């Protein structure tokens, strides 16, 4: 995720130096959140193991979540929001580690496109994450130490299976909608594929049905950066009291480039210099873009666990919806009753419109009701998190139409226009 508004820091550009004093308070907050999140948490015992695509089941395990709004009497108004790669359950509430507002407050809240006065909104931390759902930073019940790489590799389908167990535990048979952008969109599509009867509608934004070779390549660069950091300690840095900040920051820097468009980078930074009149003929952050990326990298390592980054990037790399259905995407959605809304952005080169179109074509071939819009935005993949009014209007319109069909009462007289 990018900062919605970014201001050039007044201070000297940060160096990517592992000896920088760690924001100890944040780091220890984050470590506490892994096992004992300050959000709601559903704990499953050995009687309710979570089966994983990789083979073994895990138990006990837990899933951390937040809810907003009220579940109605017939339990028909629940919307599950799936977060992106490094997001969390705090979609519309203050993040306990960073102290920052929720990551999608533009979309979710009272009177917002996903209206919490009308819908009961659930958002959970993904499996493999680090804010309270079982992940590599969680304590392994067998050893009393963090799982580290002993946690089996997880997939998007595993994340969705965990969410489905949460939703069942909350007493909800069918979700009114599953909504997500980027990796969240993959989960939304996976929900429709895995549990077609449990999803009335799906909103998949800026996403794909599979990770491309280029997507995998960028993720591999990030993982190698993490693992090349001596502080990674073969994945056991938490016990060693260390943190592979440098590697994780580099991973984030590389990934962050993919979230923005060439045009938006150029508009924002051009070749502007950072706090200097001329280039310094050295390897300091001469350019604003360098300073910006370093800032992004350093801000990230305080709030995210390095091993968790390996797990969530791997999950998206393994994602290929069609692969489980003979390579034919249309077969994934055969006979589905779910209503779909697919959105893409013109300047998103991470998950370009052509991949959303492939999903739409498959849904058409399967006879599924589908809405699709490519939204004009020059801000790249991150557009889905930004203030793009067109996106909000469409999500609101789609959900209102679906709610009418589902018979969910609106908070006020609804204008069909």
């Amino acid at each position, binding site marked *: 995720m990018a900062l919605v508004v970014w201001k050039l820091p007044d201070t000297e550009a940060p160096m990517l130096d592992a000896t920088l004093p760690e924001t100890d308070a944040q780091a220890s907050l984050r470590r506490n959140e892994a096992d004992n999140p300050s959000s709601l948490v559903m704990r499953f015992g050995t009687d309710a193991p979570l089966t994983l695509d990789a083979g073994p089941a895990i138990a006990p395990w837990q899933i951390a979540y937040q809810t907003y709004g009220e579940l109605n009497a017939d339990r028909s108004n629940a919307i599950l929001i799936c977060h992106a790669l490094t997001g969390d359950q705090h979609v519309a509430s203050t993040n306990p580690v960073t102290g920052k507002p929720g990551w999608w407050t533009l979309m979710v809240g009272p009177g917002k496109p996903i209206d919490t006065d009308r819908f009961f909104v659930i958002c959970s931390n993904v499996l493999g994450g680090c804010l309270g759902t079982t992940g590599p930073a969680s304590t392994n019940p067998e050893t009393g130490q963090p799982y580290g790489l002993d946690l089996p590799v997880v997939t998007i389908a595993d994340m969705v299976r965990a969410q489905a167990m949460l939703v069942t535990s909350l007493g909800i048979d069918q979700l009114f909608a599953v909504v997500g952008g980027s990796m969240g969109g993959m989960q939304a599509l996976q929900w429709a594929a895995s549990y077609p009867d449990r999803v009335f509608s799906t909103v998949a934004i800026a996403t794909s049905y599979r990770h491309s070779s280029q997507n995998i390549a960028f993720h591999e660069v990030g993982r190698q950066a993490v693992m090349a950091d001596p502080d990674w300690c073969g994945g056991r840095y938490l016990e060693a009291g260390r943190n592979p900040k440098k590697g994780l920051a580099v991973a984030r820097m590389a990934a962050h480039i993919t979230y923005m468009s060439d045009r938006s980078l150029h508009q924002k930074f051009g070749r502007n210099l950072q706090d200097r009149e001329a280039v310094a003929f050295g390897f300091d952050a001469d350019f604003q873009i360098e300073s910006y990326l370093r800032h992004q990298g350093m801000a990230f390592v305080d709030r995210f666990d390095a091993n968790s980054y390996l797990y969530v990037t791997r999950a998206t790399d393994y994602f290929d919806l069609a692969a489980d259905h003979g390579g034919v995407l249309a077969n994934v959605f055969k006979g589905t009753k779910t*209503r779909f*809304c*697919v959105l893409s952005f013109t300047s998103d080169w991470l998950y370009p419109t052509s991949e959303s179109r492939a999903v*739409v*074509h498959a849904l*058409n*071939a399967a*006879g599924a*009701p*589908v*809405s*699709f*819009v*490519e*939204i*004009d935005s020059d801000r790249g993949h991150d557009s889905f998190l930004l203030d793009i009014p*067109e996106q909000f*209007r*469409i999500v*609101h*319109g*789609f959900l*209102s*139409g*679906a709610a*009418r069909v589902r018979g969910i009462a609106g908070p006020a*007289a*609804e*204008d*069909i*226009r």
Partner: protein
Amino acid sequence: MTDLADLTSDVRIDLKLIADLIEPGSRVLDIGCGDGALLELLERTRGVDARGIEISQEGVNAAVGRGLSVIQGDADSDLVQYPDQSFDYVVLSHTIQATRNARRVLDEMLRIGRHVVVSLPNFGHLDVRFRLMFLGRMPVSKRLPYSWYDTPNIHFCTIRDFVELVKDVGAHVDQAIVLDASGKRLPFSLPWIVWNLLGAQAVFLLSRDGH
């Protein structure tokens, strides 16, 4: 709350005619659906399972914003993805003149739908002929508002031309309704030549022979 009277009063007259041709509860694909006015009318008044394709982003955004199942796409290239006979009706309203390959589009529509509904402006109308003959200019009017050099309408035809095309693709006209310039229906008993001269627009219900 918009009631049905409001919904139907400002709808293009050909859309109302099309809606009347469609069986309640059927599956309908509207190609070139614009902002979804027809789809909304059909969903509200006929209870149909309505889908749309629209090439312009503004049109799609407006339609999806109304809660309709509409995708951004191109009639000339995107119809191939739909399975045979997957809709009861495939509608092309005031769009055929903007397609690159009208014959192929009509062929695809007849493949996808059991019934096909086409509405079109008649380029054989008296007013058009008058402008060409006496003014020597391509007609620009309220119904045909574009200049020849920047019009999306690249394949104008007359009612007679269209009926010939229908024959050519092996389909037949199950019903034809022709409206004059004031939007009044021309009597069914009039010969084709009169329809072609006085008809400002026409709505056709077609099916492939043998269906």
